[in-house]
């Protein structure tokens, strides 16, 4: 008998809302959306957490400018997330020293349960979760172990990515999607196929060339058009 699942709901009992940032395809900007959304909430003085569950290859710490080899989540009846730029942050990167973690599905499932079981978030208005691409172990675990979690789907205007959204809408996870963010939009083009999914459009984000320069600099990241659009998405989500 695995004792961890029962403690997961206990650990999240004071978290008002869990939002997992998902996508069918990689490279659409999930990590930047999750990190910037959490930073934008922190800027509004909303108690917020950011959990990087891209367990084999986490990168939220890069966006936040955290060196995982120099920080350790403090141990206290479990572990406490690290405070970064006004938000509470947890990532497996703190334990891998920022290196890749090659894992099969059963290992990913174990890391998910372990991280949720050991992390003491305390009271949060929102917990934002970054996830790996696709609809695999982490997404299924979130759906099973965090029943109230909503999904924010991220796509680019590419038909390849929008087709993934259409597929997501047809799965049992489709009902979890609280909205869609279309990233890397060029010439104002928003894909037609989006309407077929029935998902609510939260915002569109133009291709932002300056983002790369501001990785690791949350203060500057919050001044970008990307962050402004994230604010729009939050207004719609929180209304």
């Amino acid at each position, binding site marked *: 008998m*695995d004792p961890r699942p029962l403690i997961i709901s206990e650990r999240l009992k004071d978290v008002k809302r869990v939002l997992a940032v998902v996508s069918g395809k990689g490279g659409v900007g999930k990590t930047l959306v999750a990190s910037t959304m959490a930073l934008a909430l922190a800027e509004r003085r909303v108690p917020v957490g950011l959990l990087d569950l891209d367990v084999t290859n986490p990168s939220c710490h890069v966006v936040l400018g955290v060196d995982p080899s120099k920080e350790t989540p403090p141990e206290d009846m479990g572990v406490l997330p690290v405070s970064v730029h006004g938000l509470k942050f947890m990532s497996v990167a*703190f334990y891998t020293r920022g290196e890749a973690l090659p894992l099969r599905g059963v290992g990913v499932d*174990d890391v998910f349960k*372990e991280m949720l079981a050991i992390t003491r978030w305390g009271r949060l208005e929102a917990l934002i979760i970054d996830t790996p691409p696709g609809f695999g172990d982490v997404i299924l675990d979130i759906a099973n172990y965090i029943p109230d979690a909503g999904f924010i789907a991220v796509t680019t205007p590419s038909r390849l990515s929008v087709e993934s959204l259409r597929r997501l809408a047809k799965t049992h996870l489709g009902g979890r999607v609280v909205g869609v963010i279309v990233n890397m939009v060029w010439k104002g083009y928003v894909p037609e196929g989006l309407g077929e999914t029935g998902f609510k459009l939260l915002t569109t984000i133009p291709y932002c060339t300056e983002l790369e320069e501001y990785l690791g600099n949350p203060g500057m990241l919050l001044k970008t058009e990307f962050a402004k659009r994230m604010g729009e998405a939050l207004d719609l989500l929180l209304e």
Partner: protein
Amino acid sequence: MAEAIVETVCGYLSKRGVDKVASLKIAVGELQSVDEGILRFAVEELFKGRGVEVSSLIFEKEPAVFRCNSCGRTWRLEDLGIPEDAREAVHFIPEVFHVFARCPHCGSQDLEIIQGRGVYIGSLEL
């Protein structure tokens, strides 16, 4: 961990309307390096606090055994050469051993934990 064990057992007991356990075996996997004495103390105290009587509380050490998915060989923990300063990270998230360990034969990181990962409830008798 103690909290998780006690919550799980109490959930099991409350579904059956009982508050006594005849025997509870807790397996302690070698990889996670949990201090058995501290865990036992915490579990006993938490059970006391919940008014649950456990007649026999047994902790069983489970040696860690790994199989390489690339070459098929099996290894014990000491064969993998995990650095001492990585043990704390492995204690919190056992799967991170994949970062620090390689198959001694072929060098692959594609290692599978056959047994001895962490703590779980081995058996419970009412």
